[in-house]
Each structure stands twice: as structure tokens, then as C-alpha cells.
């Protein structure tokens, strides 16, 4: 697979703050590359360096096999980006905003192209309305329309689900999968929410304090032998006692917050379920949690907020 993004030894300091520290990673063609880290980890700074908004202190950035320093315009013409909030011209309509950025992206603008794009993001009926009256979700959708209007080969979405309701989050997730599978685009998506990233990403990079913690495919990062299962029952203390006297004792983890949890292989979950029923335990829920989540929680020192 050709390399779309190749970053080597990237550093950025703001005064005494080392925002990005010797960061190296590669994004291949067709990847949905999840860029994960808690708030302030250096994700946005890295993305801004990829878009030439921030100059790196040191390091090498190549996109599409070309240096960003020497082929800036050519490279940016192939990128569609939404950086953090989708801030737009509030006094202009959705149609006018899209038209302006389509022109600046270098594509041939026609009314049909613009309306089709607005149709894709579900804003065709609000095309002539001023953006100042739009909800956050509508602005986000318009931001995505702007990022995609010139049919870029690489799409960079920085925290695309920020401020969205569950339906909006699901729509963005669907869009990312569609961009990758149907339109064969390379997507780099950043988030501080593991849950968001792991549902769409084919490869994941976790950073903390500007440093790379781990990078790999979802399969590489998710060790099936380290799957954590949480059990909620009518009497969690009794459940823990029964399991500690069974063959599952070696899998049990100390009980915390009145939650019974076991670390096991993913394939053992059905058998655990059967045994729980045989022990006459009333189960309310049996929830699988990945080792990646524990890993992420550990590296980000518990500041991670789990969302469902």
C-alpha cells in the first residue's frame, strides 16, 4: 500500500511546552487511521502541522510521497479537512459557504455540484438559510460537505463528533465508513474517545503528552486473551463468591465499585455465560470491555471519559 502520510521525528514546542515530541507514524492508502489521545495530548497540533497551519520545530512530513515543505499547494489540494469546530461565515448561507470554500479548494463550481453535496449531508432544504441559525450538528455536516466538495484523496477529521448528539455521532461514524469502503478514501480521524475510534479505525495511534504510546491495527492492539468482562447481577457480592469458588477463580479481578469483572479469552465468554445461568445467578448485564480500553485508561492516567 502506498504511503499517504509519512511523519518522522516530528516535534513542536510552544515556549517551554513540548506539544509534540519526536512523533513518527505512517498512514497507508485506504486506512481509516484513528488518532487517539486525551485532550491536550497533541493531536490537533499534529493535524495542524499536517495542514501547514503550524510550523514544526523539527521533523519531516511527507504526504503523497512529497515533502510538505516544497509541495504545499499541490498536497493541500488533495486534502479535505475539518479541524475541531466547523467554524463558518455565519452571515452567509450554507450554499454560499460551500461555494466559497469549493472555489478556494480549486474545484469547478456549479449549482448542481453544490446542491448535490448539500443533499449528501442532508442540508439541501436549508441551502439558502444563513449559518447563524444552524445547530452544531448542521454546522458539522456543512463542515464535512466543505471538506469533501473537491473530492480529496485524504480526509482529515479532527474531533468530528464534538458537540454532537447520539444521532449525529452515528451519522459521522457511518460517513467515515462510507468514505473508506465506498469512496476508497484515506481517512485520518482524531478523537479523545476510544469508543469512537475503535468502531471505525483500521489502524490506531495513541499519543500522550505529544509522544507516541502505541501504533498498530485494531487486531494487533486488541489482545483476545485480555478481554475484560463485567457482570452486573442481582447480588454482585454473592456472584463474586460463587465465581471465586469455581474454575473461573483465576480469571477474577478484585471487585471494585461493586462490579464483578473477569479477564479471559474472548472465546470463553459463551461458556462463562452458561456457567452463570447454571449457578442460578440473575444476570442483568454481561458487558465486554477490551484490553485496549484498559491500556488507554492506563496511559492517559484515568482521565479518559468512557461513553456509550
Amino acid at each position, binding site marked *: 500500500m502506498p504511503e499517504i502520510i509519512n511523519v518522522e521525528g516530528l516535534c513542536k514546542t*510552544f515556549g517551554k511546552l513540548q506539544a509534540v515530541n519526536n512523533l513518527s507514524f505512517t498512514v497507508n492508502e485506504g486506512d481509516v487511521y484513528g488518532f487517539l489521545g486525551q485532550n491536550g495530548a497533541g493531536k490537533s497540533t499534529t493535524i*495542524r502541522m499536517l*495542514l*501547514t*497551519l*503550524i*510550523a514544526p520545530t523539527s521533523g519531516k512530513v511527507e504526504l503523497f510521497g512529497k515533502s510538505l515543505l516544497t509541495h*504545499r*499547494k*499541490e498536497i*493541500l*489540494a488533495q*486534502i479535505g*479537512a475539518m*479541524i475541531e*469546530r466547523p*467554524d*463558518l*461565515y*455565519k*452571515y*452567509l448561507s450554507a450554499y*454560499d459557504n460551500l461555494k*466559497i*470554500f469549493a*472555489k*478556494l*479548494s*480549486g474545484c469547478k463550481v456549479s449549482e448542481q455540484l453544490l446542491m448535490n453535496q448539500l443533499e449528501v449531508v442532508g442540508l439541501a432544504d436549508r441551502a439558502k438559510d444563513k449559518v447563524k441559525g444552524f445547530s452544531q450538528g448542521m454546522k458539522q455536516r456543512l463542515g464535512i460537505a*466543505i471538506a469533501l466538495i473537491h473530492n480529496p484523496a485524504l480526509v482529515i477529521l479532527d474531533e468530528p463528533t464534538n458537540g454532537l448528539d447520539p444521532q449525529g455521532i452515528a451519522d459521522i461514524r457511518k460517513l467515515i465508513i462510507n468514505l473508506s469502503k465506498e469512496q476508497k478514501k484515506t481517512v485520518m480521524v482524531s478523537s479523545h474517545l476510544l469508543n469512537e475510534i475503535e468502531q471505525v479505525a483500521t489502524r490506531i495511534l495513541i499519543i500522550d503528552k505529544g509522544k507516541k504510546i502505541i501504533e498498530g491495527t485494531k487486531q494487533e492492539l486488541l489482545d483476545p486473551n485480555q478481554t475484560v468482562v463485567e457482570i452486573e447481577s442481582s447480588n454482585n457480592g454473592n456472584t463474586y463468591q460463587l465465581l471465586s469458588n469455581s474454575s473461573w477463580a483465576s480469571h477474577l479481578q478484585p471487585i471494585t465499585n461493586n462490579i464483578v469483572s473477569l479477564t479471559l479469552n474472548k472465546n470463553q465468554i459463551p461458556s462463562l455465560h452458561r456457567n452463570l445461568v447454571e449457578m442460578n445467578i440473575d444476570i442483568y448485564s454481561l458487558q465486554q470491555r477490551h484490553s485496549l480500553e484498559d491500556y488507554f485508561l492506563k496511559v492517559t492516567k484515568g482521565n479518559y471519559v468512557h461513553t456509550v
Partner: protein
Amino acid sequence: MYTLFKVELYKIFKRPRTYIAFAAMTALITIIQLGLKVDGKEYIEFVLGDLSNTLQVDGKLCNGYFVCFCILNLLLIHVPLLIALIAADMISGEANMGTLRLLLSKPITRTQFVVAKFLAATVYTLLLLVWIAFLALFVSIFIFGTDDIFLVKNNYAVQIASNDIMWRYLGAFFFAALAMVTVAAVAFFLSQFAENSIGPIVATMSIIIVFTIFSTMSIPLFNKIKPFMFTTHMVAWKEFFDVRVNADNESIAGSIQRPDKIINSALILIAHIVGLVSLSAYFLKKKDILS
């Protein structure tokens, strides 16, 4: 860059704030014209002062040309504020709205971005000047009619024949446009250091006020820096209304007393514009976009 320039113009003229300046100018000029229509005679007597005792004047002193001169004198102090309102918002406004990062991640260079934005601010400035010219000159001619213009300077008076005036106004408005574009360049330069337009607007007006005080006070220390301050040269449009005289002390039609002064001032203003826009491009190129 032409696309970017067109986009910038489109954005300027789609904003309601753009039209504040046009509305304010219309209101101010109308008020001045109304005042002079009602009490023009008293105003002329006030302007002439003691001369009215020794000078007998035939014709209409309060004519359209004279009214236009008065309006220009008054308004060219206030117009910079209206210019700064737009020019100071050109970059800071984008940072404030959060659109700067979106614009600068498009395939355009930062130099193109600066030049296109400044050209758009220049077009706005020129259109405002055209509007002022229309109201102050042509509407005044329509209301007050035409005649020779009689202007009282510090220690002499100038009379210019009515058929020798229009080209002088053309020159004066061109020069005023250059002066106002310089103000736009100052506001535009300051615009990139802020994330909302209030700071650059206040800073631009403060610079103009302080420099104007320096320019008008005759203190040796200030005299050394006066020739380099743009405010000293902004008022050189008045030179178009100073004529040479012949041996009989009569005005020579088509003459300007100090054309070299106009050229020198124009060159200094152009140098300011080029310098400030170049510095804007230089600083923006080095700037990390964090907004």
C-alpha cells in the same frame, strides 16, 4: 489569487457592517449640506473673518465647490475610523470566527492570502471614497450650484476659477484615496496580531491621533520624525487647491504651487502601503495558526 480576491470582495459586501460606513457618510454629508444651505452665509462670514471688511466679493461664495472643500476638510479626519472598521477585521475577524484555519489549509499561499485580502480592503476604501466624492461634490453642485472657489489660507487667500476646479478635485480625491489606503494598510497590518477587530481598530485610531498631534505640533524633536509619519502626508490633497500667481498676483489657471510636495507625499504614502503589506505577509508566514 484572482479567485481569492473575488471571494474576499464577496464576503466584504455580504456583511451588513460594510454598509455602516456608506450610511454614516451619507448622514454626515447630508447634515453638513443642510447646515450650509440654511446658514451658509454666516459660515462664510466666519471663514472670511476680517477679510469681509476689506474685500468685496461678487458671486456665490457658498457654492458646490466650496461646500465640497469644507466637507472634505471635516470628513477626512473621520473616514479613517470607517476604513479601519473593515480593514482591521480582515485577518482578525477570520481568526475570531475560526475560519482562518479553514482558509489557510486550502491550496493558497499565505502571501496570496495577504495580497488578496488587502486588495479587497482597498476596493472597499476606493468605493467609499467614490461615494463620498459623489455626495460631497456632485450632490453639492446640484444643491448649491457652481462658481469660483475662494479659500482662506493661513496668511493669504486663493481664488480659483470655476472652470479650473474639477481636475483639482479629481487629483484631491485620488490623493485622499491613497491616504485612506495607507490607513487601511495600517489597520490591516495590526489586524493579524489580534483575534478580534476591536484591538486593531482602536490601535489604528490611536496611531492616527498620536501621529497627527506629532505632525501638527512644532516641537524640534517631533520635527525630525514628522517627514516619515504618514499622517504628515495625508493632508497633501489640499496642495491641489494652492495655485501659482503671475506678476499681477493673479492665479495661473492649471497650476499647482508645490507639485513636488504632492509627489513626495504620494511616494511616502505608497512606501508605507508597500512596507506594511510586505510586513503583514512576512509576519503571517511565520505565524502559527492556533485560533
